[in-house]
């Protein structure tokens, strides 16, 4: 079986999972620097433990390390998340519509900021990364039901925030 200590295997694992780890930590903290640091730390740990981790366990290993890194971070830090807009061609839409869209997105951004971290992380992992509840549950170390609850509460909060009721 492939060995994680081999350069080839290790770099493949990095290419396969680094973006995921980056996104994950970014969703949690809205901080790119932290997210980049988390990727570095997680994979350094993987390298140091390469003799003890098999390639198929490497993914959950790096998620666990990344997750643990920030367990104690004070979450009082103001989280400002910025979401790049997809470059769709919107020129055929009316200016009013585009303005409305922009406002809506701003409201959504604010509402996401206001969510508790675990709900936000769950929501974004599903909406942006396309992760299924089972996978998110594994990453976060909780049950699928817990993830469903977080998702439900997130959707409810977001709607209430945006609609103003």
């Amino acid at each position, binding site marked *: 079986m492939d060995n994680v*200590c081999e350069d080839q295997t290790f*770099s493949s694992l*990095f*290419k396969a999972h*680094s*973006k995921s780890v*980056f*996104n994950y930590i*970014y*969703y949690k903290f809205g901080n*790119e620097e932290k*997210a*980049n640091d988390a*990727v*570095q730390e997680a*994979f*350094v740990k993987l*390298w*140091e433990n*390469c*003799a003890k981790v098999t390639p198929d366990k490497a993914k959950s290993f790096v998620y666990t390390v990344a997750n643990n890194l920030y367990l104690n971070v004070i979450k009082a830090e103001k989280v400002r998340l*910025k*979401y*790049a*807009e*997809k470059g*769709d061609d919107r020129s055929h839409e009316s200016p009013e519509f585009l303005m409305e*869209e922009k406002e*809506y*997105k701003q409201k*959504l951004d604010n509402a996401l900021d206001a969510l508790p971290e675990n709900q936000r992380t769950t*929501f*974004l992992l*599903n*909406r*942006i*990364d396309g992760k*299924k*509840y089972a996978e998110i549950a594994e990453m976060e170390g909780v049950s699928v*039901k817990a*993830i*469903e*609850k*977080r*998702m*439900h509460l997130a*959707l*409810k909060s*977001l*709607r209430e925030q*945006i*609609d103003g009721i």
Partner: protein
Amino acid sequence: MQENYLAKWLSGELSEAELAEFKKSEEYASYQKLLEVSKTLEAPNFDADEAFQRLKTERIGNSPKVITLNPFKKFLRVAAVIAVLLAGSYFYVSSLDETYSTQLAERTEVTLPDNSEIFLNAESQISFSKKKWDQKRDVTLKGEAFFRVAKGKKFTVSTDQGTVAVLGTQFNVENRDNFFEVTCFEGLVSVTFKGKETKLPAGTSFVVIDGVIQPTNKPEGAHPAWMNNESSFDRIPLKYVLAELERQFNVSVKTKDVNTELIFTGSFDNTNLEMALKSISTPSHIKYTVEDDNVLFYAGNTPQ
């Protein structure tokens, strides 16, 4: 509506009836819009190649992390004393690995790229990858060695009977046929034997004979006796004592009517065969003859 129905709706797990009911609700339109707009969200850019380059050069780089200037040598010397591990078939040798071995009645010292030191007892062999040393400090051992591990990343010693992981301590590892002993003299060591991990703080030993873990006493001194030219045994079956005698003096030891399972506690001088033979025979109430390289232990008369 079922519990967490919004989550179920998102994942397409609502029943047709529930979906129809949801669609009739006032908030449905809002949720629908939320769903669509959230699809356009994106995470910031992440350049995996650049991150990988950074990882290699800054974190897992080729430049050694341990300062090798001589004046600092003493400060860096934190060794774990672990008893020698027996490394039989685990021996992995490749063209990239450095190998050092000792013959019978021979000892040697090896300095590793990070200034860690290994003292090999007789008939032992160690092997490690010089090239990969900065990334991974792993030594494969057959026989017996005393390790002084420089402070730094995890240091592991692999043998065919178990693995020892250290974070900067002094330890001795002994790995002979059916005999596995790890002694920690300073620091903390972790021994993995048959899949189970045991932590050994300074001043403790872990001994396995014939696959069975033995109770142990506190080891004496700051390093193993053999480094002072003495082979020391604490409640060890005689056969292992005789095996060590063979190794230290490069003699062939035979026995006649002697119970080699007898438990022996004592030591012998590694530099003087006659004295060594006396040290073994007297407490065990046996006699010996020696001719050139052949030693024979035989049953003595009834002890007084």
